[in-house]
């Protein structure tokens, strides 16, 4: 329902100027500080590079030589693969948390527990990632305990510097980011709808499948978007928990850091952005996330 329609005659113009005043600064800020830099990245991805400096000459080399090289392609496949797998795992673990916060607790208790879950994220991601080392390491807590119980007779090596370690690290990082928007979506569900489903003899599973789940999809979409993008951009997990595989993010950083190869970094960045756009576009095609803003 449109709020503007309910205004008094002549109010439309006032609210329009108010809207411009309210949104103008943010729009301007994002144009200057976000769209301009991204355009600059796009331009730089077509520039030449010679002995540690950028030359203003058009070339497709950053794309043909770097982006399409075997190293970068396999790193890209790995990065996107990690992003997708982590998103699915995080959704499977995050949804029940959101469901619990919404349906097993009162509103205040739900928000309070969510706040409590956010506390660990106030500690730098790097340090938080390092916190896993004494737990997962060869002589770490888990190995020692398992050895002591007698489940294993030598330390598990798969616990650290492995895909499992990365999954553990990523999930810890993003499960709350996934659960929060889902919780918001679940909170917006009209209780009457759930009662109606019950009255119509829908059992809990049917109610979940036909009422709760579809109505929570905007939150799921936002959570998946956060998780996918943040996973791809994460520095600490591939640096400290992987067996040494570089993701595309770490490769972009090193191409700038070692030798200021800006055109290469720009071309890889554009490709990364493109992949993210495809993912987000696919999500937005299936789910209308603006619903979460309309209540």
């Amino acid at each position: 329902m449109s709020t503007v329609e309910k205004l008094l005659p002549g109010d439309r113009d006032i609210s329009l100027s108010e809207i411009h005043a309210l949104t103008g600064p943010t729009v301007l800020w994002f144009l200057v500080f976000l769209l301009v830099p991204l355009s600059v990245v796009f331009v730089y991805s077509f520039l030449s590079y010679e002995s540690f400096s950028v030359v203003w000459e058009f070339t497709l080399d950053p794309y043909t030589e770097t982006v399409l090289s075997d190293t970068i392609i396999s790193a890209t496949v790995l990065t996107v693969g990690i992003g997708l797998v982590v998103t699915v795992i995080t959704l499977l673990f995050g949804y029940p948390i959101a469901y619990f916060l919404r349906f097993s607790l009162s509103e205040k208790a739900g928000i309070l527990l969510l706040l409590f879950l956010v506390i660990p994220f106030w500690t730098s991601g790097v340090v938080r990632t390092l916190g896993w080392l004494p737990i997962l390491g060869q002589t770490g807590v888990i190995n020692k305990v398992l050895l002591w119980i007698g489940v294993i007779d030598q330390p598990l090596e798969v616990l650290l510097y492995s895909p499992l370690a990365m999954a553990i690290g990523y999930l810890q990082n993003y499960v709350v980011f996934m659960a929060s928007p889902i919780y918001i979506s679940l909170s917006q569900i009209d209780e009457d709808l759930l009662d109606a489903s019950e009255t119509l003899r829908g059992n809990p599973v049917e109610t979940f499948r036909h009422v709760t789940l579809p109505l929570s999809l905007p939150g799921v979409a936002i959570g998946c978007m956060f998780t996918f993008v943040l996973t791809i951009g994460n520095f600490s997990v591939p640096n400290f928990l992987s067996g040494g595989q570089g993701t595309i993010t770490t490769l972009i950083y090193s191409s700038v850091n070692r030798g200021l190869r800006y055109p290469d970094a720009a071309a890889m960045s554009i490709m990364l952005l493109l992949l993210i756009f495809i993912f987000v576009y696919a999500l937005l095609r299936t789910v209308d996330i603006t619903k979460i803003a309309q209540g």
Partner: protein
Amino acid sequence: MAAETTTRSSTSNDSLLARLSEALNVRRLLVVFVSFMILYIYAPILSLIAFSFNSGGLTFPFVGFTTEWYTILFENQTIIDATVRSLQLALVVTVIATVLSTAAALAYRYDFWGQRGLLYLLILGIITPGITYGVGASLTLSDLAGFESGLWLATPVHVVWTVPFAVIILLAGFPRNLAENEQAARVMGASRWVRFREIVLPQIAPTVLGAAVFAFTLSYNEATRGLLLVGQDNTLPIQIFAVATGTRATPELFALGAVTTVFSTVLLTVAGGIIFYSSR
């Protein structure tokens, strides 16, 4: 993890009776699962706190209790400087981001042309990978516009990173009948300023505070976006990253993590207390 798989497999059971009896159990399983997840989410933090007092460093088991790592931490001027810089940056970013995002979110009381476009523009700020944005911002601000590298050059970038999250929180947290209440005051002849001060502000204040706290955290922890802009003025996350990649984990970093956690718990408790107190 065990609770998770059981919850899932239970939904595929077809007998109605079995489903009903399991529906009761689902709640219990959910409690077990969430307790497990809370422990898991806190595991690295608990590990930080525990091992920051271990005289044997970062390996299990415990050798002995020591506060040595804290002494070393507090004598480390580089870390202290970086912390101060991070706090300064996060404060300035929080103020700007809170003003921008509150204004933008208030516009969503109305339907307006471009409301979807604006939301997508904000989301672009989140979905642009940190490193892509970092490269773009450093090329634009340092190389093209010629600004000198330094702490404050990271301000616009951090604002772009924090505003979208703040707007999402505000939109989710604003009361549903905000526009109607304001409209009622308008009909009764309240001026724009009075309406904002007396009607809008009291209703949105707790959410705004929540958004501000969130913006502060995001800025304080952000490393990649500012990485190429700050020059020598390393912020704390950048400094930590530099130390950790150079020497792997050190017990001092664990001590630092422990201090941060305690500090933020106190801060969040206070903020949470204010929100709950004022929403009554």
